[in-house]
Each structure stands twice: as C-alpha cells, then as structure tokens.
C-alpha cells in the first residue's frame, strides 16, 4: 500500500507536466481546428527561458545588485518566463499559422513541425550541445508520511499546476475573453461576424498555451534539473496524445487525460520492466480510442462539419 501511494505521488507529478502541455494543444485545437506541432518545442523553449531568467536573477542576487529570497526568485522566474514564452508562442502563430489560415490544415501541421525543428536547432546553435542544469531554487526537504516519502518540490509542482489549471478554468468560464474563446470554439465561421477577431483570439490562445508550457518547463526543470534541446519532442508528442484522449478541444479532458497518461506510465513502469512503458501505455491509449473515438469529453461530429 505504501508502495502504491509512493507511485501515486510520482504519477501525480509526472501527469501534471503532461496535463499542462496538453492544455496548450487542446486550446489551439478548439479555436483553429489544428494541432500546434511546435508546442512540444515551446515547452523546451519555456524551460530554457526559465533557466536563463533564474540564473540571471541568482547572479544579480549574488553580486548584491538586488537582494531577493529564493522563493521570490522562483515566483519571478515563473512570471517572467510565462510572459517571454507567450511572446514566442505569438511569434510562432504569426509566422507559421496566420498565413495559412485558409490553406489545408495539413499544411499548417507541416509548418508547425518545421518551426519545431527550427526551435530545436536554433537552441542547439545558440547554446551548443552540452546539457544545462537547472538551478535548484528551493531546498529539497523530504517528509515521511507513514512510509511515503514526499518532497516539498513534488507538492509544489502538483499544487502550482492544479492552481494554474483552476485559474485557466475560471478565466475561460467567467471572463469576457474566455467567453470569446468559447464562442470561437463553438463556431469559428459565425463568431467573427459578431465583431470578434479570430486573429486576436488565436494569438491569445497561443499565448496562454505557451505560458502554460513555460510553467510546465520550469516545473520540469525543478524536478529533473537537466535540460537538453530535444527534450520537447517526446513530451510534446505524448501530451498531444493526451490532448486527443481527453477529447479534442476540451480543457477538462486534457487535464484529466494528462494525469491519466502519467498514471499509466508510472504504474506500467512499476509493474513491468520500464522498457515496456511506451508499448503498454500506447496500446492502452489505442484501446481506449477504439472504444471511445472522440475521447473522454469530445463531441462526435459528422463528416460534413469537418470541411
């Protein structure tokens, strides 16, 4: 039982990364009906920006220019990186997606893939092939709850991601902008006629998705402090699968499916040899999709609606 709870904690942590990234895929899909294949690499960029900001702030503190406690550095890092990464996201939307608004959707998928490659290679060219290690901003303390070991970082990661998801949910439900997003997701042909610009909404969606990816990147850097330029690929594709599993365009579904994917992966690795992780995880996903083609919360659509 202790073993089970221990893995439960790990799965919650692992799943929150997937959930945060999957949200970005899901939001973009709900507005533009296309997958932002560059999103995994935006996660990577977010992690690197977080690395840059935090090392910068630490250096400033060390030289005595400003005196900041570590927790404040962490908060500032998260906020700054969210802002900077959302700029990157908007840039990606401007370059790769807006010129292709009327093109076949597959073409936009290709530009997304290519922007992803450019981001990876650009990073490699700028920083070189060596891996960088994320600074440890808070001291790790371990609590022992009846045999289950929990670190404060794990708690922080899960709490921060849940808080952000909740905030996003409230934003989408309560605010005027959120209402515009929901309307656009409902019908992107008619809503622009009501005076809501699809470009503004698309830009905002990309910005929010990228900010979430940046949070995921920083939290990932806290938990696994080694960053490399290709870390976004695997995470991105897996989170993409989670976004589908949750139901295309469903915020709630993306969160749940992200956590579910985390659970599946951790528990498969617990029971079977860990090399079988991908095999079994993807087989389970394929089975689920066979019986629930539209994911958990997705709505079935007819063939006409697509084109």
């Amino acid at each position: 039982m202790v073993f089970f709870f221990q893995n439960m904690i790990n799965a919650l942590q692992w799943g929150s990364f997937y959930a945060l990234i999957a949200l970005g895929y899901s939001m973009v899909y709900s507005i533009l009906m296309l997958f932002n294949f560059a999103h995994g690499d935006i996660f990577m960029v977010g992690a690197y920006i977080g690395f840059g900001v935090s090392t910068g702030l630490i250096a400033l503190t060390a030289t005595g220019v400003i005196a900041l406690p570590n927790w404040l550095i962490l908060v500032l890092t998260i906020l700054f990186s969210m802002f900077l990464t959302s700029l990157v996201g908007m840039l990606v939307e401007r370059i790769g997606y807006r010129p292709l608004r009327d093109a076949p959707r597959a073409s936009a998928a290709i530009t997304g893939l290519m922007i992803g490659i450019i981001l990876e290679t650009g990073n490699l060219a700028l920083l070189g092939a060596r891996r960088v290690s994320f600074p440890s901003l808070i001291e790790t303390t371990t609590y022992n709850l009846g045999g289950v070991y929990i670190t404060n970082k794990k708690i922080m990661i899960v709490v921060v991601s849940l808080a952000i998801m909740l905030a996003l949910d409230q934003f989408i439900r309560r605010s005027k902008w959120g209402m515009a997003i929901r309307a656009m997701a409902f019908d992107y042909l008619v809503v622009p006629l009501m005076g809501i610009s699809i470009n503004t909404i698309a830009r905002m969606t990309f910005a929010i998705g990228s900010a979430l990816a940046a949070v995921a990147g920083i939290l990932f850097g806290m938990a696994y402090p080694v960053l490399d330029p290709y870390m976004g690929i695997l995470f991105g594709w897996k989170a993409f699968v989670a976004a589908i599993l949750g139901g295309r365009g469903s915020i709630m579904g993306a969160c749940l499916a992200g956590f579910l994917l985390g659970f599946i992966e951790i528990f498969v690795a617990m029971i079977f040899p860990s090399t079988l992780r991908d095999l079994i995880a993807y087989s389970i996903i394929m089975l689920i999709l066979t019986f629930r083609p539209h994911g958990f919360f997705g709505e079935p659509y007819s063939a006409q609606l697509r084109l």
Partner: protein
Amino acid sequence: MTKTDKKHFFSRLFSGIPVLGWLLGVLIAVLLERYLGEALAEILGLPKIPVLFGFVIMLKKPALIPGSLAFVILIYILPIWIIARLSAPATNAAAGFLVRRSVGLSAMIHLALLYACIHIWSDISAYRVLALKLTLISIMLTLSLNVVNGYMGEFSCSHPGFMALGAYVCSIFTVGPFINDRFFDQAILPLFLAPYIFPVALIFGGLAAAAGALFVAIPSFRTRGDYLAIISLAFMFIVKSLIENLEFVGGPRGLGGQPDLASLPTVFIWTVLCVWIINNFVRSTLGKAMNAVRDDELAAAAMTVNTRNTKMTAFLFAAFWAGVAGGLFAHVLRYVNPGTFGVQNLAEVLAMVYFGGLNSVYGSIVGAVSLNLLGEALRPLELFKWIIIPLLLILVMIFRPKGLVAFKEFDPRRVLQPKLKSE
C-alpha cells in the same frame, strides 16, 4: 505563328525537346564526366570531380566557386542543352515512332536510358551510389504516403512504423537463412541463392507492414477526421517500442549483417515498379473513388462508393509499399535500429510529401529528389542545414500550400510523346 514568335527567349530555347532528347543529352554529359572529368577538374584547379554538382565543394571552400561553376557548366549544362537541342528533330521522330509502336516498349527504352545515365553518373564514387539509392527509396516512401495523405486526404503518421516492420521482417528472411547469425547459428542456405529469395523477402516485408496497417485501419476508419492521425501516431510508437523489446532481433542495439543485396539496379527496378503500380492505382476506378471520398465522403457514399473498403484498400496498399521501401532501406545500409524509425523520420517523409505536392506522382518524385539533394548539398553547413530546410518548407507552405506540383496527373503517354515546336 505570332504566338510562338512572342514566346520568351528562354522558353524557346528549351521547347520542342522530347524526354528522349534530354535523356540523350544527360547520357552524353555523364559520359563526358566519366572520361574527361578528371582532366577538366585538374585544369580548373579542383581537387577532384565535384561529387554533387559542385554544391558541397562551393560551401566548403568559397575560393573554388568559379572553378566548380565552370565545371558544372562545361560538363553538364552546355553538353546537355546542345545535344538535346541539336538532336531534337531526330529524337522527336524516334519518340514518335516508339509511342506509335507501343507505349510499353517506349517506356522500357526510356527507363533503360535513364538507368544508364544514373549508373554511369554514380560510378564515380561510392557516395553517389549511396545517395542515389537513398533518394530512390525516399521516392517510394513519399509516393506511398502521398496515396494516403494526398489522394485520400487523411493524415497518417505511421509510415516510419510500416517501414520498420518491412525492414525487420525482410531482414529476418535474408539474415536468417544466409548469414551465420544468432537466428540459426549456421547459414542453412548458400549465399548465391539470396538474390532469388530477396524479392520474396521484400514482399513479405511489405505484407507484414500491410498486416500492421490493418491494426490502424480497423479502428480508425469508422469515423473521419484527425482520428487516423492519432491512432497511426500511437501505432508508430508501439512498433518502435515493440522492436526495442524484442531481444531476438537485437532490441535497441539494432540488427546488422544483412547480405549486400540491394544493388543500384535492384533498387532502381523496385522504385520503377512502385511508381508504375501506384500511378496505375491512383488512375484506376479505385483511385478515383479515393479522390471522391476525400472531397466529400457523403456524396461518394451516395454514388455507391464503398467508402470504408476504399479507404482500407488504399491504406493497406500504401503500407505495403512503405514496407518494401523499408526492406530495401535495411539492405542498403545493411544495419537497422529502432531509433531510425522515429519522429525524425516521420517529419522527413511528411516534409517530402507536402513539399513536392499532394495528389501527384510528379510531386512526390520532385519532393523526394529535391529534399534529398538539398539535404546532401547543404551538409557542409552542419547545424544550419536544419534551419535552412525547415525555413524553405515554411515558405513553400505559405506561398503554395498544396506543394510545388500538386494535383497533376502523370500520364506516361504524354511524357513519352514527341514535343512539337509550334502547336
């Protein structure tokens, strides 16, 4: 007549030359390079014959740009154009005669000439042979993916998976009996039989890929939309992970020691076969049914097209050819490992399909050849190659969202016909 007079100077230079004429020109050019290339390279101050039309050497040593440009002009551009231009009346007559006689015979002669050209061209260095083989395999892959993504209008991501299945199954059939290996310790058949078993092994590889495609097709063709994209993506990861866990084919270390069976003529013949069969497939009734399903599934169903069967057949067919291409790939490199068949490979194949053009055999050939050539030519730029090529693709997508040569029918008769100067 006035229309031809007003034609642009350049288009007049190149009009009225049949494919036969161009092939003849290329043949002369590669022969020239074969026999005079060394001497000319020495005169122009180049260390050796430029391997890839001078691209590589120009990027490596900018001082040699004039020399290599002169080499390319003197060896390729001028001879090809002069021969093609001068022989145009003769080749036009010959092409006309051949087409009237039999399109099949004409196609055979053209292909024989084409093969002679690439054989002599690649004879200069082993690097050229390898690059050429990989390009031919890319053509097969691109074309088979185009059947699904272009002609059928779905978005499939499982091509690396099919390729891996083909590569491994085919390798098992050749490595197992003919090489002293872990499958049966000793080789149980003599090696000289291997070339006869190889086609069978390739077909088995293709069939294995098609069987794998069944796993994707059965759940995903019940509904339309992005569903196939996800299932096929999951399938790709499953295949990769499965092979990594199969110890008897080497697991993550990969499988090596394939006998040297994929010679240039073999690869060429299979590629031609693939292009020919796929071209006939997409121009058949079934191919038109595929297009109908893509454009409007409901209307197609109303017109008595069995949409599900059409999609299944086309998907399995495409997977078969991807498997064959995978088998050839394994025997060209004589080593495969599961890491090859990942997201990177997927991005490359997708890029070739969408760069070249959807729904078009021409497009697939153009896409595969140009991206392969570009990849090799920009190799000296190392990292920046992976910034330039994606940027180029983004530009193509923005300005020609359907690809360079999309929606163009490949009719052998029209290709082989003589080109008349004034029409």
